[in-house]
């Protein structure tokens, strides 16, 4: 299981639109993969764009939410 932090900053706020929205550490850089069913997803607002809105535009499956 890997951690996926919502860090925002991508061109789209959609959950699955861009790896740019996802990081591997709190407040870190984007570029991690969009979370999958084996990932824990964390929204903690850290970083300059970590509080950006997130929009579920398709079903997303994660391990921990």
């Amino acid at each position: 299981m890997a951690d996926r932090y919502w860090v925002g900053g991508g061109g789209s706020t959609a959950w699955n639109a861009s790896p740019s929205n996802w990081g591997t550490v709190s407040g870190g850089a984007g570029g991690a993969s969009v979370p999958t069913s084996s990932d824990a997803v964390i929204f903690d607002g850290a970083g300059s764009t970590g509080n950006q809105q997130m929009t579920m535009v398709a079903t997303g499956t994660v391990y921990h939410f």
Partner: protein
Amino acid sequence: MITSGYTGIFNHGQTIVANGNVTLGANFVQAGTGQLTVAGNATLTSNGVIWTGILALITTNGIKTLADDWEINGLLNVANTAVMNGFSMKANGVTMTSALTGSTHVILKGGIWSGTLAISNNLTFDGNVTISGIVTYNTGTFKYLSGSITVTGSTFQINGSCTIDATGMTFDRVIPILTATITLLSKLDSNRIESNLGNTTFAGAYGWECNLLNWTFTTGSTTIFQEGIEYKINTQFTCNQTRIGATVTFRSSSGTNKAIITLKNGAICSVLANFTRIDASGGRTITTFIGTVTDCINIIRYDGNLPDNALTF
């Protein structure tokens, strides 16, 4: 996990499936009515946040443990057989595609209760709830607290020993479908009470009132009424499927004291049954065409010259 540090908008217009624990951060902002689907075994923590969408429980026999009280604005969808333990789950309706057990107190603040699979958790109506079609309640305590309850055409099945405290609402149809003890903490009102399987024991300090009591057993069965408690039938008492063979018995819970069955004056009586320690003095005479009448008041066995197929006075 959504921590309290996240102050953005979590817009869940679509489903999010969690294959494990779910934690909602305190005071986080949501939009949408999407579905949160929880698979497998999971601990669910709301931190006081109301999930604004649906909550679905999937994965057969998955154990969901609530770490605190939950409230959702959508319905609770029990899609696979689930156990839900701890605290309370307040929902806007429940769909019982599969059975739900566990210690979580389920509270319906509105919405529709539908689906035939049983709820065994404590269940409270606290809002305007519609019972749709056949629903099933198992062990636990069912309580009516408030709200306008719509029951037209619905059936409340009871398939396990349970406690009911539902004064203030009226069921359309109540059916004990398996042997069970039904403990009444307040008077139960129903348009119809019917059964054709199992032995039913009515216990507790209160009775019930119905328009039709319809026992359609084709085999022997015993129905026990709490001594000293009154059960009222206003329109029709029917128990006439056992002319040959085993007979249905209605009796008091006590070996000495009577229970009270009041068949309203003018009501139809169509009964083939045994009666033991039943006081029917508050209404019309109950007449049975077969069986024995033991230590009863205002109940007679008719031995007159009626046609063989006579069933109704």
